[in-house]
């Protein structure tokens, strides 16, 4: 009986995997197929990823992350870099291309899997939400402003400067005010 339940569970799992897709790529293949040529012709945006807040709250940081490997001493995970802006690109698309191009680890939750209806960035460079205190997580700025949109809904314009910053205090330390209002969401 136990075995049957296990078998049914296994079947369900396999079906879920099949539905999700079974495209397996080696690491080389993955990066090969995801390399993006940056050509100078078209529109571009600048993107950077920083985690300065972690440096200020190092004591709150999970012990397993207390290494320069995961938190660069200058807080700079990705220096400001120019990327091509294609038609319909969202901030998430740019981030996705940038981290792939620079081989930075990133994990996210698809738009269908969370309540915001937008892609939710769980972690970049092994720094996850709640990795540095209960109010920590990733936020993004466009031209110094924190847009009140999910990153897969915001479409930047030519020449925009996107900054991904890690907050340890629900955005307060990064100068973002509105997020406190959404606390508990």
């Amino acid at each position, binding site marked *: 009986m*136990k*075995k049957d339940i*296990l*078998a049914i*569970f*296994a079947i369900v*799992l396999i079906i879920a*995997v099949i539905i*999700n*897709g*079974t*495209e*397996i*790529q*080696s*690491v080389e*293949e*993955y990066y090969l197929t995801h390399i993006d040529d940056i050509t100078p012709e078209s529109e571009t945006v600048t993107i950077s990823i920083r985690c300065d807040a972690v440096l200020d709250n190092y004591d709150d940081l999970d*012990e*397993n*992350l207390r*290494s320069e*490997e*995961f938190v660069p001493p200058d807080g700079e995970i990705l220096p400001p870099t120019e990327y091509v802006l294609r038609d319909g690109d969202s901030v998430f698309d740019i981030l996705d291309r940038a981290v792939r191009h620079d081989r930075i*680890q990133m*994990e996210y939750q698809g738009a269908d899997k969370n309540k915001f209806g937008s892609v939710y960035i769980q*972690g970049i460079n*092994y720094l*996850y939400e709640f990795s540095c205190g209960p109010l920590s997580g990733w936020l993004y700025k466009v031209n110094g402003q924190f847009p009140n949109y999910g990153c897969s809904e915001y479409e930047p314009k030519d020449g925009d400067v996107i900054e991904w910053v890690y907050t340890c205090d629900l955005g307060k330390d990064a100068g973002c005010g509105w997020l406190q209002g959404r606390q508990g969401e």
Partner: protein
Amino acid sequence: MKAFDEIDPVAAAVYFVSVMLVGMFISAPMIQLFSLLGAAAFCLIGGRGEIKSDLGFYIPMFIMIALINPLFSHNGVTPLFFLNGNPVTLEAVIYGIVLAVMMTGILLWCRNFTKVMTSDKLLYIMGRAVPALSLTVSMALRFVPMFKRQMKKVSAAQKGMGLYSSKSYTDRIRGALRVFAAMVSWSLENAMETSCAMKARGYGLKGRTNFAIFRFTLRDCIFTVTTLLLLAAVIGGYALGYIDFYYYPRISAADINAGSAAVYVSFAVMAFLPFMIEVKEALKWKYFVSKI
């Protein structure tokens, strides 16, 4: 599992809860390994044949848990390959294996628990906490098999009259409903009589006590104290960070020092305690037999 069966339910429960607590919440690989081995040793001494057939369950389950984790967790610095654009990392695989060890260990402990802690033992523990509940459960345990048997009888009786046994499903469902409804009446009827019997025997008088056939002996006391001391050692060591271990994003190097070794040894002793008791009893018996 003869010797361990004799241990007082409370002592046994304290032991199981302690082991499972550590096994569930401390994910250091050594702890998990000892937990699994201890549980397996316990099982083995219980009955070889059963373990053999159960392997068919535990091994696939182990593999499945180990596989599921990397499918959902993409953290970790060593991608092995990418599945649908998500990395499957070495760390996640290893953590999956540790999780599988943990789950298998816990399941085996649960299996041991149910084997040792028979319903009356559980009832005994429950009765000490909530007396009314213990009686209710006991009555339920009495009632369920009776209900089943009566239901079989009613079904057979109906079939013997040729009712509700044609091939049509509606007829069968109707029959099942009828039988069930009859069973409800029967249960009420039966409950009435039972309650009469209970009243006749003084149920409802004030100052009801709870009787148990178990006795907390000195041996049980020693066993419980040992368990708690070992648990304290493990939890203390854990709180002091002797056995800190991380899987994400990079697996931390195993750091064996005096402190961690002490914790590991404590837990190993703890996990193998029932096994040791059994072995000791078996040896004693052999010795005893040889003297005759």
